[in-house]
């Protein structure tokens, strides 16, 4: 049997996606090879949130040389290596490691978000403890739960996820039950009349799509029950890469496919 190449893995991804209704767009700058190329022989595949040095190292130690990250590898969305090359601290170390260990990286972002379900949303819901049965409709990303307080809801999210750097805006005593979830920057605004709380990944604090933190602060002053639970871009999208590994496994039966976490981004002072 011929060895499995990275190009063949990508071809199968494109084929299966097309069958599932997601035709491949070659125009994207995101979903491309970021290191190595189609001829690299694949020893195993690691899906991960981001092409961090930690994810690459962990995958390599597990014998997996093909990394499929959702986000970038070179600290900018376009993966413009000219930007990263300006860094004298770690860029060369990272690239040398990848070359030495025959790493190949193929990013998958835009096409994942076009899949239904969007694994980034279903993964987030799973990892923050929202039961699928409470979703108002398939892929609505809206959940109605038994009434609780913002403080209790945030505590339960933290308990399930375990991360420290979860940030919350709003009155902890606010009574809430209608939740909208977000993944990464695709985090919905909190001002919709039929939403009490948004649980999302990342948003500009001001001058983003909508300045939800200020809106929730004002809502708290007025006694309008609103909440904003922001768990981090990484935390909101890492979980969906577990679903991606599960999706990939049957189409590349020749090799091992694992989900490898990109690593904790932030800690908070004790």
């Amino acid at each position, binding site marked *: 049997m011929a060895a499995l190449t990275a190009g063949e893995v990508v071809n199968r991804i494109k084929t299966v996606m097309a069958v599932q209704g997601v035709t491949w767009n070659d125009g994207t700058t995101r979903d491309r090879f970021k290191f190595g190329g189609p001829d690299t022989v694949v020893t195993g595949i690691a899906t991960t949130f981001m092409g*961090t040095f930690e994810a690459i190292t962990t995958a390599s130690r597990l014998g997996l040389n093909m990394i499929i990250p959702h986000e970038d590898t070179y600290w900018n969305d376009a993966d413009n290596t000219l930007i990263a090359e300006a860094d004298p601290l770690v860029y060369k170390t990272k690239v040398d490691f990848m070359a030495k260990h025959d790493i190949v990286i193929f990013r998958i972002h835009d096409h994942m978000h076009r899949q239904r379900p969007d694994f980034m*949303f279903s993964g987030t819901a799973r990892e923050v403890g929202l039961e699928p049965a409470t979703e108002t409709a398939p892929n609505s990303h809206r959940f109605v739960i038994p009434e609780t307080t913002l403080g209790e809801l945030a505590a339960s999210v933290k308990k399930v996820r375990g991360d420290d750097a979860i940030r919350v805006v709003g009155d902890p005593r606010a009574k809430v039950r209608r939740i909208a979830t977000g993944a990464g920057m*695709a985090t919905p605004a909190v001002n919709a009349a039929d939403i009490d709380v948004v649980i999302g990944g990342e948003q500009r604090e001001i001058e983003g799509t909508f300045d939800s933190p200020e*809106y929730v602060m004002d809502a708290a002053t007025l006694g309008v029950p609103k909440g904003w639970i922001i768990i981090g871009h990484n935390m909101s999208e890492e979980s969906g890469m577990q679903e991606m590994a599960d999706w990939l496994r049957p189409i590349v039966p020749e090799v091992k496919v694992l989900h490898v976490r990109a690593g904790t981004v932030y800690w*908070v002072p004790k």
Partner: protein
Amino acid sequence: MTHVSRRKFVALTVGGAAAAPFMLSRTSAHGTATVTAQDVVDRVKKSIGVEWTGDDVDTFKIGDPSTVVTGVVTTSMATLDVLQKAVQAGANLVITAAPTFYTRADLSTPAGRSGGPGGGAGRGQVAGRGAPPSATPGPSPASASGPGTGASAPMPPAPAMPQSVVPPPQPVAVDGRPTPPPDPVYAGKNDYIAKHKLVVFRLTYHWNQRKPDPRAQGLAAAMGWTRYAVGDDALQYEVPALTLEALAAQLNKNLGTRGGLRAIGNRAMTVRRIGLLPGYTMIRAAIAMLPGVDAIVAGEVQEWESATYAQDVAFAGLEKGFISIGRVVNEAPGMQVCADWLKTIVPEVPIRFISAGDPYWRPV
């Protein structure tokens, strides 16, 4: 360079907002001359020391510019809480770094929806404002402030954007049909502003172009670092050695942050050289600064850019730290500096800074 004492800043940031209001009277010790909101803004434009580039974000957001000013409050963000504290303090002109109405466009009513009685026409109360800025939602990379704003574009929110990202268009009232209920938060804020005849002006784009950067200058003052400055741009400090963990804790204490401060790097590493990246910055700025310092203290960055960079550097075992304090928290010291500067050009009325605080808390 306006000096901000550390004690003064801390008092105003942490507990100062609730401190006793200053007594205000138009015929008080400040003299009998009256000054309007427009007068204040005209003096700002004349004296700010950077070219006023016309109608950008730095405009009146609500209220009548011809209002006679009883007192001025500068703030990091004109939340309703800050507006209430301003009124308690007898001030009626609020100068804010962040938007008042939740978007860069700063419209006092959400698109297609009533802002509620008393304030729905807030936009119409604003005189002397040129063509309104684009109301197109979405990130505005061109407006990103701070040094080193790179060419790398933020990730467009194209994929799978949930429907509630922007205020949904509401049906136009037709005979026999009820009008949609007003957004209670817009309505409540507009009502309060109308009732107390407040005027809100945003001052950020031009203010933050001053040299040194007021946000960096004010942050250093709040931290007691001014005397440790390296160079004259207020962006780097050589401080007595401390651990990254201790630095994070000191920032928390002195800036009054609750849940907004987050850090990357070995907690036990030693920090001597600190670099500041005020406001919202992109990856080129972090790459340019981190090699020359032990730790960066930034306002706001995108997670897939500077945060991941710092994560990779730390994973490689290098002793480098990165701390994000939050955008609104980072605007506060700059607006403290602004209050002190305004006192020199508007001597007729009392002026003080009131912080919007840290928006975030952490679950237990």
